[in-house]
């Protein structure tokens, strides 16, 4: 390129000097020469005019860019040797860029690498993914249905559970109330025994209470015994009646 440039710049100078010192003799020689030379001459003159017209003071690369040509033919940087840059040149300037368009396609190695990447990045085929998605969806639905069934079964038992709970609470309160009443009665009895109001923390009171309680327990025991005997008697009588009936 640089060589080429030099020749371009040299020629007009030469010609200029020729003109400057020219006489008719030179012209005569030129006329005698072939047409080709004249053509070259005209071209050179044209180039010279173009060079003089270009007053932009742009660098050659910029001048090329402005005129839609690739900025330079010779690489100026390591990046100008890359495949990417050359592809870009072809994409932008077409075949005038002088780049072999086969560069635009990936090489065998690149294809291999790409396939390897895809094997890792996309490990499943569409069909496999569809199957897993369907399976997951089914599992989720099954889970929801199972939960619904559980709730329905529990809801059916809810009334019974409520009743049981209320009964339990009622029973407990009744027991507590009975115990309280009993205690109060005892205390009242003790008070009546002493005939005046006595502090329940008093020793005498406590003794009396214990005594009363003992008595109460005894009474209860007796009552239970009597009840038992009564039941026994009733049973015996029943038996007697039955035997007498049989005899009849």
């Amino acid at each position, binding site marked *: 390129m640089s060589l080429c440039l030099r020749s371009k710049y040299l020629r007009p100078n030469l010609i200029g000097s020729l003109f400057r010192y020219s006489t008719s003799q030179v012209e005569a020689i030129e006329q005698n020469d072939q047409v080709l030379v004249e053509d070259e001459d005209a071209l050179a003159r044209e180039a010279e005019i173009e060079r003089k017209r270009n007053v932009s003071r742009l660098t050659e690369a910029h001048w090329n860019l402005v005129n839609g040509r690739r900025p330079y033919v010779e690489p100026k940087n390591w990046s100008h040797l890359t495949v*990417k840059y*050359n*592809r*870009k*040149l*072809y*994409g*932008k*300037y*077409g*075949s*005038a860029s002088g*780049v072999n*368009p086969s*560069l*635009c*396609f*990936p090489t*065998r190695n690149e*294809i291999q690498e*790409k*396939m390897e990447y*895809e094997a890792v990045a*996309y490990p*499943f*085929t*569409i069909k496999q*993914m*569809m199957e*897993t*998605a369907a399976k997951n*969806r089914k599992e989720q639905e099954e889970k929801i249905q199972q939960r619904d069934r559980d709730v329905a079964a529990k809801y059916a038992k809810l009334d019974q559970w409520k009743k049981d709970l209320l009964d339990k609470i009622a029973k407990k309160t009744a027991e507590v109330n009975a115990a309280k009443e009993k205690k109060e009665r005892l205390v009242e009895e003790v008070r009546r025994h002493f005939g005046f109001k006595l502090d329940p923390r008093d020793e005498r009171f406590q003794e009396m209470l214990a005594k009363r309680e003992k008595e109460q327990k005894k009474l209860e025991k007796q009552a239970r015994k009597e009840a038992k005997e009564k039941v026994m008697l009733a049973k015996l009588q029943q038996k007697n009646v039955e035997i007498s009936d049989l005899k009849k």
Partner: protein
Amino acid sequence: MGSRQITEKSLSMLRSLPRISLGNIRNNPKSKPNPKRGRGQHGGDKHGAGNKGSGQRQNYMRLGYETGNNPFYLRVPQEHYYRGHHLRREYPPLSLHQLQSIIDRDRLDITKPIDIASIIRSGLYNFFPDQKQFGVQLTDEGADFFAAKINIEVQWASEQVIAAIEKNGGVITTAYYDPHSLMLLKNPKKFFESGQAIPRRMIPPPDAIEYYTSAKTRGYLADPEEISKERLRLSQKYGYTLPNIENEPNYNMLSERKDPRQIFYGLEPGWVINLKEKCILKPKDLELLQFYST
């Protein structure tokens, strides 16, 4: 000297002065801070940094720190519905109303199939694939007066939108594009000028496969027969008579679809497009053909 004389004199002075121009004006004094910090006993007192505290010492507190208070950004509990938001796909919306207005202004050619590239080309919609945006989502705003018969391909659409388009005798497909393909669709010229072969479109990720294979959402991987059944079902659900596409004069346009591996309409993966010479380079190498056909 009376005040009149003074006025006259000053006016004559003013007249003799040159006109005000950019060449003879300057900033007001002290309107620009001195870029140099003053030094010395009184030149460098506080350097404009104020008196005392982190302002003067220029050891500013970290962002959000409230000098010992419970900071605002920690005061509210965490919002778990944002979990994984940085990984989720976003589909920026385009309403049917907007689409209708784009069509009415003749910035979208409805005699050809519409895809995201043509919507972008209308200049009235934009999106950013590098911000996890995966293409256009058609929303149902303006569904009542949408009246265009189109063959459109979007990335996400609701049932109402599908019904609105099919009611007019149009066709809608939902298709997935990977971010790289979306980059190409967003600016095809830039890609063609890079002189690369058109890549293949990638398959959707596992969490999107259900949407894009479902006939209900008109997925591009769904069975066409299922889709025609769903079209009928949807028309019955929404109560309109489904126009018969097969008798349409532009049936060919309405039935045009992209291949699941294809990115641009009419261009196949593996081709190199040269805009300068207006030519297409197609690969002939068997290995290349095989790679681009899978």
